[in-house]
């Protein structure tokens, strides 16, 4: 055990108070890059870190390195709207995300790091009877898979979320909602740090400021990666670089069904509790806003993609307006509050809206990508399942459907029915 970070508890806080400086240790240690590893994971985001953690803990793999271009948790794991849920329609998706949601519920204890899972409910608002039927289709599919879901009519919605005025004359009246009570939020940065700490304690080398620039191969197998810190030999290579997967595709010479798009999020100044659940509001004329309130008090909101490929992390101004417009329409009383900060992440958007977890080009190269809007909430399940895949060489049932060949065979996982277009015309 290399990581010396003490066990966290109220007791440890007290001990630290008494002991003073020197009690706390680094959460993860930046070890020296070794020449060779059993598994090299590219990307110290949520998925890479979780995969490393499970490879070390569940599969006893000893020599693991995570190579990170920038910093632990610098990408989308820290640039989302913190929502977790498993309210998916397709069985392949809802079983996977449900596995994740169950792991979220115990993750703080598993990692001994408080990721602040807050099951405050996720409400998908329905604006017509037709949308209620579609919500029912999804909710029933969930319920029959053992996942919690409730269909709220207007009165029940009012009871569950009194902060939402459903009686007001609205351009699009709110008819009801699909509720998943166990859905909610998780403190995003804590996820990266908690996994990094736990992985580091299991002996995983986390190497920051180390960019992978190429893959070397011999005899039809990958043999290692070129990095800005030199060549590293690896028996297995894992790419978990969602947001930059297309570049991995070109590095390996494999065209991928992925476009890289930008997704914005923003937060208001902190205010006292005003919204106690997560609202998802999709309305005609390309309107989309999801909103929740962070534990610090800021109203966190997001909406649609910026609408064209981007690696800039600079959102378009009018998209911020679009998101706020939906928020103010839902909760008119917040109109006098102010947006404080805004950020954007680059999303791997696949051509059916579901992720890709598969080998790529070589038998010993694994790619975990294409997370579209679902990357953050998928982290715990993805880490566990992908580690099994990498360790055993065979994909567990939970992620079999996420193979790349599904586009060729037609086993598409098109949750929204939008087809091969991340942006709708």
């Amino acid at each position, binding site marked *: 055990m290399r990581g010396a970070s003490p066990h966290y508890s109220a007791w440890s806080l007290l001990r630290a108070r008494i002991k003073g400086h020197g009690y706390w240790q680094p959460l*993860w240690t930046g070890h020296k890059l070794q020449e060779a590893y059993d598994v090299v994971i590219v990307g110290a985001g949520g998925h890479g870190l979780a995969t490393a953690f499970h490879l070390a803990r569940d599969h006893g793999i000893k020599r693991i390195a995570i190579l990170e271009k920038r910093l632990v948790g610098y990408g989308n794991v820290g640039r989302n709207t913190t929502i977790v849920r498993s309210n998916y329609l397709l069985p392949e998706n809802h079983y996977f995300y449900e596995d994740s949601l169950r792991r979220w519920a115990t993750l*703080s204890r598993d990692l*001994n790091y*408080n990721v602040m*899972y807050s099951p405050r409910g996720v409400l998908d608002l329905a604006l017509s009877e037709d949308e209620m039927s579609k919500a029912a289709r999804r909710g029933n599919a969930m319920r029959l898979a053992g996942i919690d879901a409730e269909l709220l009519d207007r009165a029940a919605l009012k009871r569950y979320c009194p902060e939402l005025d459903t009686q007001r004359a609205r*351009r699009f009246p709110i008819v009801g909602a699909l509720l998943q009570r166990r859905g909610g939020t998780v403190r995003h940065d804590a996820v990266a740090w908690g996994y990094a700490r736990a992985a580091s304690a299991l002996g995983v080398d986390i190497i920051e400021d180390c960019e992978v620039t190429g893959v070397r191969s011999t005899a039809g197998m990958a043999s290692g990666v070129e990095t800005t810190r030199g060549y590293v030999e690896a028996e297995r290579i894992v790419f978990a670089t969602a947001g930059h997967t297309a570049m991995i595709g070109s590095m390996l010479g494999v065209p991928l069904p992925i476009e890289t798009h930008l997704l914005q999020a923003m937060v208001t100044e902190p*205010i006292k509790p005003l919204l106690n659940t997560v609202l998802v509001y999709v309305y005609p004329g390309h309107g989309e806003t999801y909103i929740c309130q962070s534990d610090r008090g800021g109203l966190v909101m997001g909406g649609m993609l910026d609408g064209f490929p981007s690696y800039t992390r600079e959102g378009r101004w009018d998209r911020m307006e679009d998101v706020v417009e939906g928020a103010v329409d839902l909760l008119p009383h917040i109109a006098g509050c102010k947006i404080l900060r805004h950020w954007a992440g680059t999303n791997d958007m696949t051509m059916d809206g579901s992720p890709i977890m598969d080998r790529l080009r070589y038998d010993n190269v694994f790619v975990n990508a294409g997370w579209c809007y679902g990357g953050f909430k998928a982290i715990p399940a993805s880490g566990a399942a992908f580690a099994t895949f990498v360790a055993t060489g065979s994909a567990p049932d939970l992620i079999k459907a996420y193979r790349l060949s599904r586009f060729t065979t037609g086993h598409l996982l098109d949750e929204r029915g939008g087809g091969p277009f991340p942006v709708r015309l």
Partner: protein
Amino acid sequence: MSHRDTQAATRVGTRIANKSIKFSFDGQEYLAQSGDTAASALLASGVREMGRSVKYRRLRGLLAAGPEEPNALFTVGNFPNIIPNVSAPQLVLRNGMALRSQNRWPSLKWDVASLLQAGGGFLGAGFYYKTFIWPSWKTYEKLIRNLAGLGAAPGVCSLSPPKIMYASCDVLIAGAGPAGLAAALAAARAGANVWLIEREPVVGGELEFEASEIDGLPGAQWIAATLAELARRDVKIFTDTTIMGGSSDLIIAHREAGGIAGNNAVYRMKPRAMVAAMGAVERPIAFVGNDRPGVMLINAAEKFLARYGVKIGHELVLFANHDRVYAAAARLQAGGMRIRAIIDTRLTASETIPLRGDLMRSGIHCLLNTAVLATIGGNRITGVKIAPLDAPHQVRTLACDSVLVSGGWSPATAQLTQSHFIAGAEHGCLELNAALHDGYTAGRTAAQVAGKTDLSGTAPRGHGDLTPSLMPFWRSPSDPIREKYQFVDLQNDVTVADLRAALAEGFNDIEHVKRYTTLGVGTEQGRTSGLLGAGIVAELKGDPLTKVITSRERPPYYPMTLSSLAGLRVNGALRPTRKTALHQWHESNGAVLESMGLWMRPRYYQANGADAFTAGIAEARRVRSIGGIIDSSTLGKIEVAGPDAAAFLDTIYLSKASTIKIGRSKYMVNLREDGMVLDDGIVLRLADDRFLATVSSGHAEHMLSHFEYYCVARHYPTISDIRAVSVTDVTESWSVIAVAGSTSRHALAQVLGNEWLAKIAQLTHMDFAVGLFQGHDIKVLRASFSGELAFELHCRPTHTLALWEGLVAAGLLPYGLEALDILRVEKGYLVSSEINGQTTPFDLGMDGLVKQKNTCVGRELLNRPAFHEASRPRLVGLKAVDGKSKFLAGAQLIGSLAPRPCGHVTSTVYSPTLKEWIGLGLVARDYALGDIVRAHDPLRSGNTRVLLVSPVHLDPSGARMKSMSRAP
């Protein structure tokens, strides 16, 4: 009524006279002068405690005099109509304003949660990541959420939308301090059309208090002269206006006067060039107890004195690391405040400061190489501890009631594009003449970029305070145990101890440190804490500062009111409302309208029943027995014309359009590129080279783009030539009335007139005829979406009402969407519930269309094996096995072959004709018609045994549709 009024002691000169404004703060009434901000009025009334910090609930006063103020944030108004987190130094008071301090309960003086202070180091950086794990976060969350947050949550908001203005100018100048004014002069003299944007209500920046002379005039007079010249040159000046963001070619500015949302405006500006001269923000120095009320930035004290005539204290100690402190001290002294000492961290002060000698002679301790180590006192400062930096243990105490601090200035970090320039303090020119020169040069260059060539004129020359000659100094020496009282971010209570803890826990990068400690994430957006924190982190790490600063500012640059961002799209204007030509008729005849996309359509007519269910059944029954009419004008209509029209349509429809005869029509289906069914509709051949394609209402815009795309997309293998074809959206050029039922033909003839009798009689299914109605074009298409003998009338919107009313008079009453749904489910016709983007033509029983082997968009990908597996769904009809149970769309179907769902119910209705609930569904192909499955609906407590039947529940031979009419 007792007004607190101690202003005589704190106001300077004539400013005492004019007290006209009453306001309240935490329930206590105060007087203010017009123009006062909440901060200046409260200071003048002797109020120093203005808020509590977020984490430890420490009592706080004012630190700053602008939007960077971290502590004095008020909730304005009376609940529920409140605006939280309004920065006190910006809030211009109006009579009767009610202000409340934040983060305290029950009162500012006595706050229960301030006991948390005792926690001290216990609640250090990131403590919440280390605890609250057992039994779960949920147990603690509510309490913590209530403790967190700043202002109260508003209950209502009565703001009106902002004014929105689009503008373009040659040169946009952000900031009207000396550099910005000089830039405006230069650009305007060069003939440029100039806009000057200033965040403050007044222009001039620090000239407001700096002792200055420009072009031979005192600063204030130069400003007046400059404003006069700018007015002559038509420079538009916007005060109270802030640049919020934008990109290289669009700048967003926001006007929010008086520091609070009210008559806001949003400007979207397209300048040809831009000068950013937004100055720099003074930052504090961290020392023990630097958060006590009475510790303030020097700039802020000067501004309160100069603008409001407010003395911020009586006995001051000034603490800085640069030469500017001496001039400030002299001015504050002249303003009537007693300066006890000037503590300068540097080894030497510039010899060129005669002031320093004067100050010393007047009895002020001017100490070099010394630092303020700590403040002393309870809630109020009674003194400071100071010590020489080379002998930090030789502590001395000085009595004072205020500490003014300045650790230098942080420029608005700028990263502008080619046509944009930075000037003045933001550019590092902290000395007046340099700022003027820099501004003038930038203004001139900007004008040049904007195409102006007359570059005569010279920059104003002036002198003011000296160059600061700053020595970097971030924090005073301290015993490590006391570092938890050296505050870096006052709003979030981030201390030097927290920064040290973050580093010790391995958060080495400033980006990590910020996220872990919450440094600079508050409403001050890091203005006072960001660079200070970075400086201290660099010092703790032993790195140069440049290695530490990485993060960049993102828009909005200042907190921006949501109402201004939402703009005009609020309430009913969230989206435009599309109305058909018959909208008014529907409204005045009891229709209950509902949104369908942006359209409003009648769901049912109240005359037929009290609710949608009852009325829908009554309307559907009437259509089956007599007939009825429905306004289908929302139907998308695309006219396709040109020599290649037929060939073009062949490429975007699954079956061929080229085989349609003129005067005939055909039900056709589009595939998406991936082979899924995209849409369906009827295509009419108007002429050899002209078609009218109808598309679903909800899909119309998308389908138009789809059509247009394949007119020009050349990459597609089957569309290799440029088509001589044009595509025109005629949706709103034609209203559509669907006339259905056995009496429809008769009624139609009656309304359209005798000349139509023969024409209509000749129409067989899917024929159409063209002609005139009241002298205007009309098409009569014999087609049915109800299974009855039916016609679609395409007529001009101007004559729709007459036609509709004629039909009503002829005995055909209107029906709405509810009835339409019953009629189409009875017949197994499809809508978006079935054509949901997830279904192939095979799934929907369109194998026959596929077999026609027309090469079209999406066809190649239909061959993928998964599309032909037994688990793929197939469209079926559904009915309850017992013939009476209800089941609903959205139920999942579970059969005998597997425990998991094998499909779902897409649509259900109660059929008044069949007198039972019927539906459509998509069920795995390994089930056959006649099989029984369960419709599981746990969400609505449904569990019904249903029989798989043909999707066509009623009249499978189509006899009704093809029948001849009968008289009513």
